Each structure stands twice: as C-alpha cells, then as structure tokens.
C-alpha cells in the first residue's frame, strides 16, 4: 500500500517530514522514556512483529494473495503512539533493506499507515471495545485500513494536482485502483485478522492473569 520513492516531490515529502518528526520525537520520549533498557527491547520486539506480519501472505481465490498490515492491531493492543513508532521503524527497515516504500516518502507513509489508520482504529475501538470487543476489533481493523489507504490515495492525488508532470496518475484512477480492492477485499481480510488475533490475545491474557 505504501508509496514508493520517486512518486512524490519534495513539496509534499518535506512538509510530511516536518509534521512526522515532532511526533516521532514525542512518541520516542514518551515510550523510550528515562528507562530505555526496558522500553527499547519492547519497541524492537513489537517492530519485528509488525514487520513479520506484513510478510504473512494470505492466499486469495484466483491464485493471487494479499498481505496483512497489522498496525491497527498494534494500536488496539499497545496504543496508537506505539503503533506509530513501530510502523515507522518497519517502513525504515523496508526502505533500507528490502526496497519497499522509500526514504523520501517515509514521513508520508508513516503518517498515513502508522498514525492515521491506527489512530482511527483505536478511536473506533474505544466506544465499542467495552460493550462488543469482537465487533469493535473487526470494525477497527476495517476502518484503520480504509483510513490509511484513503490517506495514501489522497496524497497521490494531491501530488497529481500540484504537478501532473511529477505524477501523471489522476486522483480518480488512484482512488479506484486503491480503494476498490481495499474496501472489498483487503479491508475485510485485515478486519477478520484483527478480530482473530485480538480474540486469541484476550484469551491468552485472561489465562495469564486468571
């Protein structure tokens, strides 16, 4: 889902960095805190989990497959700021070692996939989580992915609007190409996955505490 390097001009990527950087610092201070010995391994471990989640391929009918994002689940389990930090680190590792996404678009991707989506999922789960946690997790997973996809599509549309020479793909095409599969297939898959994982986690926690 994330935007590759070269698709966005510095007119968008630099302001995105300017918005993301203070959030990274704030989230880092809040979660790394004074006791880095405790926080660092936890963040590193969660980042590794988030990274591996995105490599789990779910086969789809027709011989194709899709992969999970898992940022919404991280937000439900650990909060949106932890999800933002972990997803940002995942994006850095993917950009540097696997050629996915990119370093110039890191700010945009981190805000879209690491902050807006997980934040939306967390906000959805807040009122639903106490009454109907299963439905809450399902809806949160679905909404989180849609918000992330929409943010990415709108950013690409904005780039086309600002300079069609930089990105010749108009917003209508981007929206159709990204939102249709997201609304119909990947959103449902992410929602079901969030529901299954959340249920297992609740069960494991209940067993550990009870």
């Amino acid at each position, binding site marked *: 889902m994330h935007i590759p390097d070269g698709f966005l001009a*510095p007119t968008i990527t630099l302001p995105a960095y300017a918005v993301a950087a203070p959030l990274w610092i704030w989230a880092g201070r809040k979660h*790394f805190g004074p006791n880095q010995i405790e926080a660092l*391994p936890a963040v590193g471990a969660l980042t590794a989990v988030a*990274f591996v989640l995105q490599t789990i391929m779910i*086969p789809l009918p027709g011989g194709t497959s899709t992969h999970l994002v898992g940022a919404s689940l991280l937000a439900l389990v650990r909060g949106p700021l932890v999800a933002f930090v972990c997803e940002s680190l995942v994006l850095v590792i993917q950009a540097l070692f696997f050629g996915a996404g990119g370093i*110039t678009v890191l700010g945009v991707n981190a805000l879209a996939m690491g902050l807006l989506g997980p934040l939306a999922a967390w906000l959805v789960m807040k009122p639903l989580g106490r009454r109907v946690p299963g439905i809450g997790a399902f809806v949160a997973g679905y909404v989180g992915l849609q918000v992330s996809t929409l943010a990415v599509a709108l950013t690409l549309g904005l780039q086309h609007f600002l300079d069609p020479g930089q990105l*010749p*793909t108009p917003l209508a095409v981007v929206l159709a190409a990204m939102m249709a599969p997201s609304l119909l297939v990947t959103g449902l898959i992410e929602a079901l996955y969030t529901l299954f994982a959340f249920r*297992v986690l609740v069960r494991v926690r209940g067993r550990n505490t009870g």
Partner: protein
Amino acid sequence: MKLRARTSRFVLLAWLVACFAFSALTNLAWLAGSIAGVAIVFPRQAPRAARRALLTAVPLSLTILLLTWAHARFVLHVFPDLHAYAALALRAALIAFATFAVLGRVDLLGALAPWPTLSRLVVITLAQIHALRLLARESWLGLQSRLPRKPAVLDGLANAGGVTATMLTLSARNAREISDALRSRGF
C-alpha cells in the same frame, strides 16, 4: 570494503540530500545522467544495486504506470504523454539504485554509533525478525500439513491470528530477556 564510520555518516547524509533532489527531477536526460553518475561513484556496488532495484522498485512502478496509461488510453480515450511516465519510472529506479549502492558501501551500524539508542533498536529489531519469520513460516507449513485440503482464506486468517498472538507473547518475553542482558552488561 566498507567505509569508515565517520565517512559513512557523510555519505549517508549526502545520499539523503541526493534522494530528495532526485525525487524532484522530471527531465529524462537529468535522470539518465544521475543513474550514470551513481554507477560511476559506486562502480563495485552498481551491478548488485541495479539488480536489486530492478527486482524491487521497478516492477511496482511499471505496474502502476501501465495501469494509469491503460486507463488514459482505453477509458479516457486519450494518448497520454509518455514523458511523465518514463520520468516517474526512471526516478523510482534511480532512487532505489542509489539507495542500494550507498548501503552496499557504507557501514550502517558504524555510522549509527553516535546514536546508541537507534543502533541498539536496529540491532534488536533485525535480530528478532529472522526468528519471527521462521516461526510464521513454520506455522504456515504446519497449517498446510494439518489440513487435508489447501488452506482457505479463513484458515489462513485464523492461523495468522494465532501466530500473531504467539509472536506478541514471544516478543514480550524476548524483550524482557534482552533488557536483562543489557542491564547485566552495564547499559
């Protein structure tokens, strides 16, 4: 041979600035010249970096561009200007090529040494990724062997949910062990 930590830091900074500059290029001649420039600056790393860029960045950008071109040609019934498409494909390839060439030359962990928090975080994350990937793969193979038929989407999702819970539990334990190990080494 990898560069020294101090030189690596300068190269990484120059690479970051260059990537942003590359991302603003729309002229085909400038883009082609920049690709040649990167190949000249990093002659040893160029073949491997080019192969990696061709395998990772180029297929994705080409697919997106072909879709857009087909939409313009067959839905809007216009002949799109190919210049912008070629520039976009070249730009994506150039940045990936430069990234892989630079990373093949610099000592990344050495360059990160002045920021111990960051380097520790990178090491901890990378160290766990391999083990967790192995766990996910083995779990998928286990699911395949348990089922008499090919796993359906729902089977895959339920299995992924279970794997995630296992990974989160395992990662919490790993985190505790790593923090104890760090403390015992005087960090």
